């Protein structure tokens, strides 16, 4: 395997792609949204359980997709739990900036979280795959806003 391919498919991605965390349904979710990437037909649903204080108590996803989109959804659930909805929205913007080669907006606020997500930064060199990495996040943002359907187009 060449080095640039290894950048895209890092071991963490292969692991989360194979054994995704939090791929389940939350029965008493109070937010959810359905995301779709029309280019490849990948579909994914994000479930959220948000407390009255605005803190995300539980987050999960269901659906099947490529290794990148599955790993991204899995990693997202790990870094989002315990955040407020507003923080989750900011993290989405930072992640989006990282995946598309832009600048993070919130400075060092989410340094640890972004560190965990940098394994996905390789997609910035593969324009078609950016949507795979961001599908779960777009769907999360839609779930927070109670928009129940979103596409990456």
């Amino acid at each position, binding site marked *: *395997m*060449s080095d640039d*391919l290894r950048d895209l498919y890092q071991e963490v991605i*292969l692991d989360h792609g*194979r054994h995704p965390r939090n791929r389940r349904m939350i029965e008493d979710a109070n937010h959810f949204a359905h995301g779709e990437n029309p280019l*490849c*037909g990948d579909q994914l649903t994000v479930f959220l359980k948000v407390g009255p204080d605005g803190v995300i108590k539980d987050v999960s996803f269901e659906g099947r997709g490529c290794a990148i989109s*599955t790993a991204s959804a899995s990693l997202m659930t790990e870094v989002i739990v315990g955040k407020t909805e507003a923080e989750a929205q900011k993290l989405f913007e930072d992640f989006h900036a990282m995946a598309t080669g832009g600048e993070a907006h919130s400075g060092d606020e989410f340094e640890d979280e972004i560190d965990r997500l940098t394994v996905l930064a390789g997609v910035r060199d593969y324009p078609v795959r950016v949507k795979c990495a961001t599908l779960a996040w777009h769907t999360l943002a839609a779930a927070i806003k109670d928009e129940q359907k979103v596409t990456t187009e």
Partner: protein
Amino acid sequence: MIITRTEADTVAGIESARADFPILSRPVRGRPLVYLDSGASAQKPQVVIDAESTVYSTQYANIHRGLYYLSERATEAYEAARRTVQRFLNAKHAHEIIFTRNTTEAINLVAASYGRKFLEPGDEIVLTGFEHHSNIVPWQLLREERGVVIKVAPVSDNGEVPLEAITGLFGPRTRLVSVAHMSNVLGTILPVAEIVRAAHAVGARVLVDGAQAVSHLPVDVQALDVDFYAFSGHKIYGPSGIGALYGREDLLNAMPPYQGGGDMIATVRFEKSTWAPLPHKFEAGPPAIAQGPALAAALDYVSGIGMARIARHEADLLEYATRQLSAVEGVHIVGTAPEKGAVISFVIDDVHPHDIAQILDNAGVAIRAGHHCAQPLMQRFDLPATARASFGLYNNRADVDALVAAVRKVKEMFGA
């Protein structure tokens, strides 16, 4: 198809054609290009590139209107291209060939013009379950407008649509059968002549989407007795932006224009206008002036090699690729109809087709992954997507070997 020794040797002569395609000698990601996505769009031989360039450098002007030398030359070349398409499809008349942008536009033309004029609420259109979106959605638009009924012949587990699955849907309201000659996903080739015979027996017309078939097998619209036949230039080694619709003269004459504008009129008055005769009635606005002659060059090119010879070469490749890919554990071929063109859709256990395509790309192997604009078919097989290798006249066994080696790499990487 069984390849005898002598035939295989003859077909082997086709190998030199590869050198006619300049793009195939460029490296991709530091490796020789292995192009296995001709089903999406085929590469162009130098004669096609030259033909388009020659129009621009020696005889370019708008056509059908100029009273000067260049416009006459450009018009002549464009109309000569129509006659080339006529010969290629063995149509009875050149004016039965309508130039369109592509297959999609050709089907939309029939839906909008023939459909609106001749189909009534409750009339039935028969499709198969493996149609491309371009042979589904135009009929759905017509359904919304005219209340026609769409019936779908189911696809069997091996990717076939038996004749009876289609004719079994025929009834007193069947007016139109619109089917792909060859599936872009499964490779399945339909028995078009038999379908036409059965459809005509119940008074239905037949439109054939030839987007995939024209580059793989000889097509004779009179022998098939089809009413409409649509194809795109870019899939048969020609330029993008031009395609053609063959339509039976009497039908085309009875149909209203598709789009209005210049070129398609006889006279225009604010009170009432009249239409130009065929084929111009269906060709509003400036056409693909330089692409017409380039399409003709592509058709002359494949005719020079011989469509039957191309079909034999590809049948050999398909057989070899099927054998090699099937030998890899965990690889499953989707679509194994006995009558099949040179397209292989496949999936690998526990690996998403997008990841397959990405890793293959890294090895210089270009394939398509996705739903191939056939989402109902993906649903039928309960798959989100497939990987698809599609072959052209320039591919060879070394391309297949590169594909299979890269597929083994995918399995290794994903531990599948």
